[in-house]
């Protein structure tokens, strides 16, 4: 599992020491807020509605049991006993005091964690598939490339002054669980006609105010050419990037303005001009990094586990959970356990100190000490033997964490919204709670089938509403909360941006509106057709009619 090398460790310690000094100087008045603000943002400290918020990076969403325990301890000692797992696969604390934050950063450094570089106009943490290294459909573990990209971007002078924040996502599997098409740069691994694995390079995707699906700049690239190629992409971008207007400077706007063809042409020209130097160095570095992500020593197991099959026969709740929340593993006899943080009436992504400790314990006992965070605000135990699934489920079930709704209607993404966020125009969490209560019946959720509902509290789209099958965006209409519904978004390998259905709704009206959309789908769906497939076949009209037709 991933560990810092020496360089990172020293760097993090130095930054923490600097931050302690900066906080002291802020509290004594030596630094004004204007001087201090950029420094605290560099260390992941934001000022929110009620208090400061600390955003802790979780590289590749991968955590060890001791790290999770430390996060739990920080929640208990320095916060209000809980943390919030976000769509960026990190954790946020909602109530830390500034004067405590240097200690918190020290505690994070003790377990090789930090809050650095989660803000500003630089390359953010590279994100990836939450099932990296374990998914049955995966070609190769994408995390070594992620780590190579992180190092490359953080050391590269050209990236220090990017016009805008810059996000990269990477997936090593045909099924895209990392939403690569809505990032500034997306990398998607494929095999070419000769069966050789290589990378599709996408660029110009994004959410926020101007959502766009990325264009494919190159459909297949051998891995050794990846960094030089990305350098070419970045140089073309930096050459044109508009720093004069903060809403226009994203790479998606550039590609939109130049046209995909012209952007491609310029990148290829730049790539051909610069050549591909230093290839061997990178290959050596990649091999070194890959060792950090080496899987645990798998036991030689039969893929079918009799214990597991018997347990399913004996317990219907367990069988449902196993069907919905457990995914295929690449190693025989193993499974990927997904822990939904979306109980009925809960706050999506929130976990208490006790819950974090329980998951840490379970990972220690059953999952090679490892935990993942997903961009759908859930947790994963990536290395569970099938014969242990019942024991894991029982422990989760006792704690109310065996919620069998993964990828279904109750598995709702919601950003913090106006309950916490200073930028919000409306609340998100109560809408998620209302919908979760209305559709609490799991049998009904299974009948509806795979469905994503994502909610954002403002146009920044942290709740990924643009790429939800049903997206909900909270807006302010004359001082009142109002919600726009979009349909037809997706963030997988067939990504699309949802379309606004029509006039918005008040918060109280949203659950009924969702109900009508679901009823319409059920009435018109074809044999085993999912919601998204139905929407793509019939378009928005039947849904509009159901919602807006005057009686």
């Amino acid at each position: 599992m991933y560990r810092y090398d020496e360089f990172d460790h020293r760097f993090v310690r130095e930054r923490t020491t600097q931050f302690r000094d900066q906080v002291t100087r802020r509290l004594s008045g030596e630094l004004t807020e204007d001087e201090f603000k950029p420094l605290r943002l560099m260390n992941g400290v934001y000022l929110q509605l009620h208090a400061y918020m600390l955003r802790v990076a979780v590289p590749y969403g991968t955590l060890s049991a001791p790290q999770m325990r430390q996060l739990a301890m920080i929640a208990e000692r320095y916060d209000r006993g809980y943390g919030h797992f976000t769509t960026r696969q990190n954790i946020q604390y909602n109530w830390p005091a500034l004067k405590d934050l240097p200690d918190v950063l020290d505690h994070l450094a003790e377990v090789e964690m930090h809050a650095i570089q989660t803000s500003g106009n630089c390359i953010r943490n590279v994100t990836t598939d939450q099932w990296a290294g374990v998914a049955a459909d995966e070609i190769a573990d994408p995390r070594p490339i992620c780590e190579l990209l992180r190092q490359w971007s953080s050391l590269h002078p050209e990236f220090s002054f990017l016009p805008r924040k810059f996000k990269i996502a990477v997936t090593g599997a045909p099924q895209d669980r990392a939403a690569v098409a809505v990032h500034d740069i997306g990398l998607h691994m494929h095999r070419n006609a000769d069966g050789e694995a290589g990378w599709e390079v996408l660029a110009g995707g994004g959410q926020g105010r101007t959502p766009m699906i990325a264009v494919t700049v190159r459909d297949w690239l051998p891995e050794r050419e990846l960094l030089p190629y990305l350098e070419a992409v970045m140089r073309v971008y930096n050459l044109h990037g508009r720093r004069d207007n903060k809403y226009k400077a994203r790479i998606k706007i550039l590609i939109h303005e130049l046209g995909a063809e012209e952007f491609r042409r310029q990148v290829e020209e730049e790539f051909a001009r610069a050549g591909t130097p230093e290839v061997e160095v990178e290959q050596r570095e990649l091999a070194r990094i890959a060792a950090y992500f080496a899987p645990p020593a798998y036991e030689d197991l039969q893929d079918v586990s009799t214990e597991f099959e018997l347990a399913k026969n004996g317990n219907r709740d367990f069988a449902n959970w196993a069907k919905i929340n457990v995914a295929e593993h690449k190693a025989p006899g193993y499974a990927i356990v997904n822990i939904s943080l979306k109980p009925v009436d809960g706050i999506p992504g929130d976990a208490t100190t006790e819950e974090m400790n329980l998951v840490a314990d379970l990972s220690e006992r059953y999952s090679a000490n490892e935990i993942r965070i997903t961009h759908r605000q859930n947790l994963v135990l990536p290395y569970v033997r099938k014969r242990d699934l019942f024991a894991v489920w029982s422990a989760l079930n006792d704690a109310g964490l065996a919620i069998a709704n993964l990828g279904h209607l109750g598995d709702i993404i919601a950003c913090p919204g106006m309950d916490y966020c200073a930028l919000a125009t409306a609340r998100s969490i109560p809408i998620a709670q209302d919908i979760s209560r209305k559709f609490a019946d799991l049998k009904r959720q299974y009948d509806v089938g795979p469905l994503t509902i994502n909610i954002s509290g403002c146009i920044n789209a942290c709740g990924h509403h643009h790429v939800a099958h049903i997206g909900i965006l909270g807006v302010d209409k004359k001082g009142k909360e109002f919600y726009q519904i979009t349909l037809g978004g997706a963030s997988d390998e067939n990504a699309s941006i949802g379309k606004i259905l029509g006039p918005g709704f008040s918060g109280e009206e949203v659950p009924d509106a969702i109900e009508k959309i679901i009823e319409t789908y059920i009435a018109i769906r074809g044999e085993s057709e999912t919601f998204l497939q139905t929407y793509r076949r019939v378009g928005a009209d039947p849904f509009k009619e159901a919602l807006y037709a005057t009686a």
Partner: protein
Amino acid sequence: MTGKILTANRVDDGLVVFLNGRGEWAEALSEAWLGEHDSTIAEFEDIASAAGAGTEVTDVYLFDAERDGDEFVPAHIRERIRALGPTVRMDLGKQAEGIGGAFNALG
């Protein structure tokens, strides 16, 4: 009667505070000073720029509120939530400490 209240976040712990009649930063909205005249509001603006440069509070600004009996009710839901705490965690924030106010975040 409507007026304006000066609010900020405290630097050391980040919590929401309101300017009271003695020129101090109070945690409870009910202790705030409701500026109802142009002259008071002009004074608020001076206090805001001085306080914003100081060490006690940060992000100082004015919001609209209305007097309702003994308490003040912010005009906008955002400020009502700031004065109370998260609507989804009634056990947290000022509402949990009994200093939130009797009004509802939803108005």
